[in-house]
Every structure is written in C-alpha cells, then in structure tokens.
C-alpha cells in the first residue's frame, strides 16, 4: 500500500465557485450539493474521478464545509463505489476567499505530492484523468517548465455551451500545444475584434487559433503550480494564473499547454444559469455517459424511461391525464396530478404538483409543493417551497429554499429568498427584466432561466484588473517602470497641490529613479508623461488652460530634465505617448506641442525632426488636425522669420 501511495493519482477539487452566479442559492447550500438533473454536483465529480482512475481526492471547502463533510461521510457509509477505490479527504478553511488562497493553503500544507489534477466542483466530465495526466507528464519531460495543461472540449460555434458562457480565444503553438495567448471574450460584445500580437505568428512555424472551446474548469498541474501561487500573491483565479504565466513566461520559467478532448469525451462546467440548463439537458440525453441521472447511487435502474427523454422515478405517481412532452425528469416519490403539462423540466424528489399546472423549462428541487392552476416557466424553485394556487412564475424567477408563496402571486424575473425570520422578502424585483427578455429573443427559440444581471456580475470575477491590462496588446511595460511612473505622478500631483518647491520634487523624482533603476532618458520621458497625466487633468473642464498652469508651475522641473537635444526628443515622444493613451488629451496634441514651443522647452529643429519621425511610422497623431495645423503654422512662421 505504501508503495502504491507514491503512484496514486491525486486530484484537488475546489468546492466553491467564488462567484455569485447562483446567488442567492449559494448562501443556503454549498455549491457541491447543488443539484443538476437531480444529482448533487459532488456526486458527479467523485464518480467521474473514480472512473477516471484517480486514487486520492482532496476536497477543499471554503464555505459551508461542514455540510459537505457530513454529506461525504454519509456517502462513505452508504458505500458508494468511489468510497472504496478512492481516498477522499475533506479540508476546510474559512480564510480562503479565492482560488489563489486555496492553492497557497495547499502549498503551505504540502498536500500534493507530485503531478495532480485541479478541478472545480462544477466540472462534469467523463474523461480518463489518469491518461490525461500521463500525457501531461510526457509534456513535462519535453519541457521542464510546463506548469499546467488546460483541458478543453471543442464544440461547434453554434453550440449553446459556447453561446451561454464566455468563450475563450486561444492561440497555441500547433506543434507542441503550448498556449501562447488566452483571452476570454463575450460573443455579443460590441467590440468584435481581438488583437493578436504579431510576434506570436512570427516566432512559430505554425499557430493554431481556437475560438470555440468549452472550458471544463479542469487542469492538469505540475508540482510547481502551488509554489507559483505562493510566490505570486496577485494570482487570485485560474485566469489570473494563466495570464500571469503567459506574460511573465521567462521570469516565472513556466509555461502552459492545452489538450483538446477526443470526440467521445464530454466535459463542461456549470458556471451560470444558462450552462446549468444546457448541462442538465446533456445529462438527461446521456451525453455525459457514464455519468447520468443515476450517478451517485449504487443501485441502478431507479428511473423508468418513458420515451422522448422523459424519465420518472420508480415510485413516482403520474396521473393518467398528465402530459410529459420532452426532456422531463421526475424524481422518486413525486406526485403529478391531473391535466399537468411538463416540458423540458426537472422535478425533484417528493414533490407534489397539483392539477392543471403547466411547467416549462423549469427546475424544481426536492419536497416542493405546487398547488393547482399554476403556470411556471423558466424558473428555479428551491427545496421545501410551497407555491400557492394560480401563481404565475416566469422569466427567470429564482426562488430559494423554504419559501411559502401566496396564492395568485405573479412573479416575473424575481429573486425571492426566505429571511431568517421566516418572512418572505423580494430581493430584487426584476431590475433586469427587459434585458433578460432581449437575451432570450436573441438566443433563438431556446429559453433560459436566470438573470442577465447576475451573469454580467460574473465578469468582475473572471477578469480582475491584471488580466484586463494584460489583454491590451501594447503592455510589455515592465512593472518597475510602471511603478516609477505612478510615483512621479503622485509626487508631482502632491507638489502641485501643496505648492512645494520644485527643487524638492526634483530630489524626490531622482530618488525614485534610483530606487527603480531607471535610465536617464526614461526619466525624461516619464516626467513629461507624468506632467500630462496628473489626475487633476482628468477632472479639469478646460484641459489646455490647466496644462498651461501646470507647465508654468513645473517650469524648473522640466528645465532640469529637458536640456539636451536627445532629452527634447524624449519629451516629444512622451507627449506623443500621452496623447495616444490619455483620453483627456485626445485631439489636443497640436496645442500641447505649441505650448511646449512657446515656453521654449522644445526648439523648432527637434519639432520638425519629430514630425518626420511621426510620418515615417505612420503614427495616428499625424492625421490629427491640431497637429497638422500646428506644423503648418510652424512652417509659415519659420518662412516669415527667414
């Protein structure tokens, strides 16, 4: 057994999603127990891991850990198949708030012995983990720096998995499978372009570009991954990690690879309500085989197949006059009364559904009572809820558990949860109702539950600042210079506000310069850049007047740095850079250059030289009317003086 232990494949499952996509449900239930097609997510995960040849699993809980622990203990007692083939450990930590924290914790505790599988509890997949990990080890043999292999499933562009989650744009070396670029984008976003850095294409003989990948939230990791998280405290999510590694490949001496799953393998992650709906359907349609509606049970054939992908539990009672159209799953011991029509829905266990109810595209959890004559479409109803007579729920209504809804209530896109005082309260009464409807119109005939508002919330979780910055194509600015620029801006802004002596400011800038080891020409560049980037400018009504003011005040500082011919060129370059990057200077390049010319910071020759340069590399500034006008004026002026 001890010898075996070395070769056991380890998997780390992160039991929280760290986002609010399923709010308010995530406050009540841990994500692990969230039921997809009648089976808690954790059951799918454990079954797929044990089928995939994993020997040891670490479940890392951050919230509601005790509930998960209890559930796992119960299942171990029930002797589910995985409990014998796999060692399952539940770890809890209340301090972890992000995935990065979890990885640092794992590193600190030394939980992983070698290569391991990292996945979220929301991944549903039937892949052979052992084989994939072996493949990753082979990659590592070829490339010592390989830190992580990302697992993706390629699907067609029209597939709902792509449409309902944020797709990824991935550029990779076609020969080795090394990831060169990784970017998430929204398919319906206004900005339809993606910038592909040219060196990606130039440096590799063959580059593959993928735009239709489903991210299953599964990654194969080298032992170096947890230490990488520990070394870089700004890695909060897996995306941070990916972007961090891609940007600082040389510094961190690590790189990423990717694997596309074969056609007979299924992988997807429940990330929002839309993917939830798609995955439920996939499971009912048996696409994730051997994961199915019977996962997580030892005994099988608990459901009776009724054709058209309708399943009902063996002990459920269906009235003769009820109609199940398609894709309906009715849990055990549920009772469905007369004249009920159900389409594309999941009904949990022990539910009671009254007469003349119409249910479409909805998810009804366990122990729910729905009284007569209700109409429910595209909604979610949590455990133990009671829906009164003649209620109408539609357009993405989400009802958390234990809610007792009055008769004849009409809800459209509302989120309702039960407060601790057992009093109903409506949290957000359909603020984004219209938005959601638009969405549903766009996505053809398919209807989704869930609010668009929540879905856009997730953006902030996905892309923190660092990844946003990195997605800009022209950001190879190393960190130090950025910090230096920020410090110079800060010093100047403070100096301007408190009217400090310029000598002190020069001293301050110089000391910063030595602290960050900045070249002299760079200092020239950044001082001018900072002058034009002082925060006051962003709020100023008359930008030019303020610039003039600032410039006048900082005259000593400028003259200290901008003396020689080359420094003047640096200064002009800084002006160019600022005008391109700062929104408040847009279209004002000509005036600024004119100001510099008037205050004798720059001379005519350098200006002309700079203008030639601009023309040479076709800077967008050349086309700006203010610049054209200034140089026309300059030439006219010089002719006059001649």
């Amino acid at each position, binding site marked *: 057994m001890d010898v075996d232990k070395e070769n056991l494949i380890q998997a780390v499952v992160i039991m929280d999603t760290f986002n609010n996509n399923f709010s308010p449900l995530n406050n009540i239930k841990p994500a692990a127990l969230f039921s997809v097609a009648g089976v808690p997510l954790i059951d799918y995960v454990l079954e797929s891991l044990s089928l995939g040849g994993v020997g040891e699993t670490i479940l890392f809980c951050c919230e509601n850990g005790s509930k998960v622990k209890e559930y796992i203990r119960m299942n171990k007692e029930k002797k589910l198949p995985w409990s014998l083939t796999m060692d399952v450990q539940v770890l809890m930590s209340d301090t972890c708030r992000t995935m990065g924290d979890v990885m640092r914790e794992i590193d600190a505790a030394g939980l992983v012995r070698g290569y391991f599988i990292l996945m979220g509890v929301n991944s549903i997949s039937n892949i052979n983990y052992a084989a994939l990990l072996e493949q990753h080890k082979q990659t590592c043999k070829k490339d010592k720096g390989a830190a992580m292999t990302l697992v993706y499933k390629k699907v067609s562009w029209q597939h709902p998995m792509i449409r309902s989650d944020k797709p990824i744009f991935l550029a990779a070396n076609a020969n080795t499978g090394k990831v060169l670029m990784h970017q998430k984008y929204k398919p319906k976003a206004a900005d339809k372009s993606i910038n592909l850095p040219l060196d990606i294409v130039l440096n590799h003989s063959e580059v593959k570009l993928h735009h239709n990948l489903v991210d299953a939230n599964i990654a194969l990791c080298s032992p170096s991954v947890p230490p990488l998280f520990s070394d870089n405290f700004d890695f909060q999510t897996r995306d941070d990690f990916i972007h961090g590694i891609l940007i600082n490949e040389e510094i961190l001496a690590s790189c990423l690879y990717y694997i596309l799953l074969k056609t007979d393998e299924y992988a997807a992650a429940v990330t929002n309500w839309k993917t939830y709906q798609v995955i439920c359907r996939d499971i009912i349609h*048996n696409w994730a085989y051997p994961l199915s509606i019977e996962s997580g049970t030892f*005994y099988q054939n608990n459901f009776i197949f009724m054709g058209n992908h309708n399943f009902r539990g063996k002990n459920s009672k269906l009235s003769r006059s009820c109609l199940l159209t398609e894709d309906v799953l009715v849990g055990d011991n549920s009772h469905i009364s007369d004249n009920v029509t159900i389409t594309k829905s999941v009904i949990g266990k022990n539910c009671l559904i009254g007469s003349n109810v119409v249910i479409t595209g909805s998810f009804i959890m366990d122990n729910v009572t729905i009284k007569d004559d209700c109409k429910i479409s595209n909604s979610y109803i949590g455990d133990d809820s009671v829906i009164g007579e003649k209620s109408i729920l539609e357009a993405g209504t989400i009802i958390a558990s234990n809610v007792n809804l009055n008769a004849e209530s009409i809800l459209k896109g509302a989120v309702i949860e039960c407060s601790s005082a057992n009093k109903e309260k409506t949290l957000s009464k359909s603020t984004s109702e219209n938005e959601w409807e638009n969405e549903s119109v766009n996505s053809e005939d398919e209807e989704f539950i869930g609010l668009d508002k929540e879905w856009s919330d997730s953006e902030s979780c996905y892309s923190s600042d660092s990844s946003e910055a990195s997605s800009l194509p022209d950001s190879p600015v190393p960190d130090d210079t950025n910090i230096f620029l920020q410090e110079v801006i800060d010093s100047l802004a403070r100096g301007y506000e408190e009217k400090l002596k310029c000598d002190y400011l020069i001293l301050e800038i110089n000391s910063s310069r030595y602290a960050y080891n900045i070249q002299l020409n760079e200092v020239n560049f950044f001082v001018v850049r900072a002058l034009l980037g002082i925060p006051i400018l962003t709020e100023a009504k008359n930008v030019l007047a303020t610039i003039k003011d600032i410039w006048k005040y900082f005259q000593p500082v400028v003259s200290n740095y901008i003396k020689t011919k080359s420094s003047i060129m640096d200064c002009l370059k800084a002006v160019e850079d600022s005008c391109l990057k700062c929104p408040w200077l847009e279209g004002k390049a000509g005036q600024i250059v004119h100001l510099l010319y008037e205050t004798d910071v720059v001379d005519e020759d350098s200006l002309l030289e700079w203008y030639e340069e601009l023309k040479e590399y076709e800077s967008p500034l050349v086309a700006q009317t203010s610049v054209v006008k200034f140089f026309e004026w300059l030439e006219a002026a010089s002719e006059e003086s001649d």
Partner: protein
Amino acid sequence: MAPSESPPRELDSKHEDKIVKFVSDIRNGKIEGSNNIALTTLSLLEQIITECENATALELSGVVREVGRRLCRALPQELVAANMARRVLRAIRDEHRLLCEQSGGATSGTGTGTEGSGDSLQRLVLAAHGGRRTTLGAALPHLREPLRDHIAEVRAEIESCTASISSQARAHVHAAELILTHGASSLTERFLKAARRHTHYRLLLGEGPRVQESHAMAARLSAAGVPVTLINDASIAAVMSRVNKVVIGVRAVLAGGALLARAGTHGLTIAAKHYSVPVIALCPLYKLSPLHACDRYALSALDCPRPSMLYECGESSRVHVECPRYDVVPPDHVTLFLTNLGGSSPSYIYRLLSELYDPKDHQL
C-alpha cells in the same frame, strides 16, 4: 413479488466491501466481457461462501441470494452476474439434497432419509415442494467442500465454452457460403476463425454501433484468412438475399427463447426472416437468463448517443438522439441457439433453463 425463502438480510461489511469493489470494477471497465464477468462473479461468490463458516444450507443460500440481489440491482445490464448467483444457489440445493440422502442412508429413520431413497419420477415431483424447504435448514458440516467442487465445475464449463462452441463451427459453416455477422464479439470471432480452418467461406460484417471494434475484428479475421467485407448496418437488408447464414453473438438469452443482443440486431433478424435465412445465435449456457422479454426496465437501457451524432455539432443540442443499448429479438427470428452443449431450438430454451436453475431462484 419475489418468492424469496428468506427475508432480505444484512451482509457482513467485509462482504459488502467486496461487492462494491466488484461492481465498481465492472463500472470502471476493469472487468469486461460477459465471460470475465461470469468468472469473477463466481470467484466472488466462492470467497463469500468460504468465509461463511459453519453455515447451514439455508443461511448459505440466503447470503448468496442477497449477493445476487444486490448485483442484480447494481448492475441491471449484466444479467450474467445474476445467472451465476442462480447457478450457485442451485448447487447449494443439489449438494444439500445429496448430502441429506447420504446421511439419511447412514442414519436411517429420520424424516429426510425416507424421502430421498426411492427415486421414482413421481416421487421426485411430489417431494420437490414439500421436501426441500424443510431439509435446507439442517446443518451439514461438509456442505462447503462439495460446493467448492461444484463451483469449480461451473468455472471449468465457462472457461471451456468458447472452445466447445467454436468446435461446432464445422457443422454449421460450409464451403463457399456467405456468412453475415453483426458487430464485434470475441466468441463470434473465435467461431469464425475455427470455421476457416475447415472450409473457405466469405464473411459480411455489419459494423454495428461500435464501428472501431468491428473494424479491428474485420482486420483480425482477414489476417486469419477469412475474406471479409465490411458493410454498413443500413445496407444489411439489401445484401440479405445473398446471404446463406447469419451468425450472431448474443448478450443474453431470455426465458421464452428471445434474445438480447447489441442494438441493430433486430433489424438484421427481421431481414433474415424475410428472406428465410437461417439465424444461428451463439450463446454459452451462462448467458441463459430466466427473465422474460416483457421486463422492460431491465432491458431498455439508453446508451450514449455519441456514435450516432457528435456532441460537437450544434444540432446535438436541438434533437433527441435515442440510442438503445440492446435489441430484444423475438424467438421466431432465431433458427438455432448454439450452446456449449450443442444446438437447440428457441422452443427448447425453457428446458435448458430448468436444468440450469431451480425454479425458485428465477426471481432472486
């Protein structure tokens, strides 16, 4: 509904672990093929019997029945596992009666002794119901030893059945015939290879749902010297008029002589019936199951729709793809079942069943 002799009983946790391990091995695909599953089920039952020390026949049969019941529920598709439990139950009954007779002969005077003596047919029939139940309870110390021999016999039978079925190939495949088979099966492959040793024939191989396996089998057969033509399932009906014989492997043979086989077989046998082409089903005896074809729940399992359609394409999210795993072929479509004891017609299956299993064990 089950005429069980004993109420559901608790198993030792040790035994439970073994069952769970066995079930997960099968689900993980570590044990594949009905032959292997039958053998491992036997070993599992043997181990459990060995560990039940000093058990009476009643207790033993109770344990075995419970194991069979659990396997049946956990692996409803693997009818073979339940069949093995039935075989062992039968063995317990037989051995017990035998022992009773022996001991009855030695210590004459007890009730059981007189019952077992004269073996007239009428006596056996009359005694069958009244007698056995009372006798199962008696503790017999030497039950396990002969039981082990019995299990070893069953095991030997299973191990040799492939050879004994393929040895009959000569009688069924003749020179220059065109044989049609469907999908890959190791037994069919052995059978066809054995036939090749005696005669030259041509083979048409319907691809079935698992195309890759069929292709691999076609490659192996053609390496063995059989001229193979692979055809699509859809064109089976078109070529059927030219076929001399259809040879198919089965998943299970059901009580009425119906058979359970890979999806697509039913279409094939309908075509064969239409053209009056004889259909030979290769079925080792361990695949005989006392279930009836009307038991829909056990038999209607849906498979993954992947072979018919790729998940990748956008249409997969808009259509219903129903892929049944097995087809039930009615008895009148089959000409001959070729078991390891020789050929028998579908109407004779009931007889084989009553020889193999005790009628009380049909429902575990």
